[in-house]
């Protein structure tokens, strides 16, 4: 495929993506139906490139290389992993450059303007929970990062596909057969990876900020009945701070912002296996009282 230029408008940022990989083009059209345009002349915030590797290797094990504004932050990956590399590259781009927000590694979902943050390390079941909530009437603001407006408890959406791994891929495909899934990137450092486009409602409201009413730390445990632990504010802060990307870089502003979020929200740690029980808890015990 010849080199093509795509413009991706993902409030609050825009990306120019140059690629000669058909896999990347096809997945962009599938996952960002209303956000992607070809050969736009729009000036964008970032220029990204996802291209085939050159040299002898292209004949044996073809590679994909990611560049952000001429920088190559990651080693090349196998070409079939190219789309996942682009999504991870976009995460890196925002986390490394956007210091006007306090950013936490967290999913964000909302009912109306009431948002719940789900900060968690990989393997906690965060993305599976995120996908389930997003397709059960919750509004997705982000699967990967919470963009918190400094000195407030307001979160700005950054709606993008949900990253599913390994066993959660088949689960999500059985729950939401009508969903728009990317091709599978096999055997990445995270295992098999698929991206799932959020439902229409999340795209439609992708410019509506929300107020953080709770911070919930999810822990998936197979076969476990729902256990809920309310954290005091000091415990909530310390767990939340561990998931904040640029908290240290933002200095006193980052500190004030995190304390404001925790002061104005309830904090919980949950252990679960049944997602319906989790929804019931979130809606009845948090959203209805916020």
């Amino acid at each position, binding site marked *: 495929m010849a080199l093509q230029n795509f413009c991706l408008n993902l409030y609050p940022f825009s990306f120019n993506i140059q690629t000669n990989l058909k896999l990347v083009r096809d997945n962009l059209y599938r996952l960002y139906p209303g956000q992607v345009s070809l050969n736009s002349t729009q000036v964008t915030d970032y220029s990204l490139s996802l291209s085939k590797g050159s040299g002898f290797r292209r004949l044996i094990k073809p590679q994909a290389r990611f560049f952000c504004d001429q920088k190559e932050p990651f080693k090349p990956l196998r070409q079939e992993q190219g789309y996942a590399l682009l999504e991870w590259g976009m995460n890196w781009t925002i986390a490394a450059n956007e210091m006007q927000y306090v950013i936490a590694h967290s999913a964000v979902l909302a009912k109306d303007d009431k948002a719940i943050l789900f900060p968690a390390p990989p393997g906690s079941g965060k993305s599976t929970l995120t996908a389930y909530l997003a397709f059960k009437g919750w509004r997705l603001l982000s699967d990967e990062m919470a963009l918190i407006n400094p000195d407030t408890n307001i979160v700005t959406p950054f709606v993008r596909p949900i990253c599913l791994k390994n066993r959660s891929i088949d689960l999500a495909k059985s729950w939401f057969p009508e969903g728009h899934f990317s091709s599978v990137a096999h055997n990445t450092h995270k295992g098999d990876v698929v991206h799932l486009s959020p439902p229409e409602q999340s795209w439609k409201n992708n410019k509506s900020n929300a107020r953080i009413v709770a911070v919930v730390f999810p822990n998936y445990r197979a076969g476990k009945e729902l256990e809920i632990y309310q954290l*005091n*504010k*000091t*415990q909530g*802060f*310390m767990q939340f*701070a561990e998931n904040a990307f640029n*908290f*240290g*870089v933002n*200095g*006193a502003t980052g*500190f*004030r912002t995190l*304390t404001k979020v*925790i*002061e104005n929200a309830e904090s919980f740690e949950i252990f679960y296996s049944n997602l319906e029980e989790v929804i019931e808890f979130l809606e009845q015990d948090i959203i209805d009282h916020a």
Partner: protein
Amino acid sequence: MELAHCKLTKGVDIHPFSDGSGCVFFNTNTGETIGIELRLEQIEEALTVYFSQNTSEKFHNPLKGLIEKGFISTENQQPC
């Protein structure tokens, strides 16, 4: 906000939480954070013991971290 009597190192912020569960200290010079599940007055009380006895042997462990990691200034420190 500062501790009433003890001297925070320059660039250190403190936030006592409204639920009385404790305080968090943030060092803007290093980006380091310490959370302590003691109220502000309990922290001050413990620091008083530390500075008056000049010993850390009976000292509450999390508070020891405040001194060792430079959140509380030990220079020209008067007992709280």
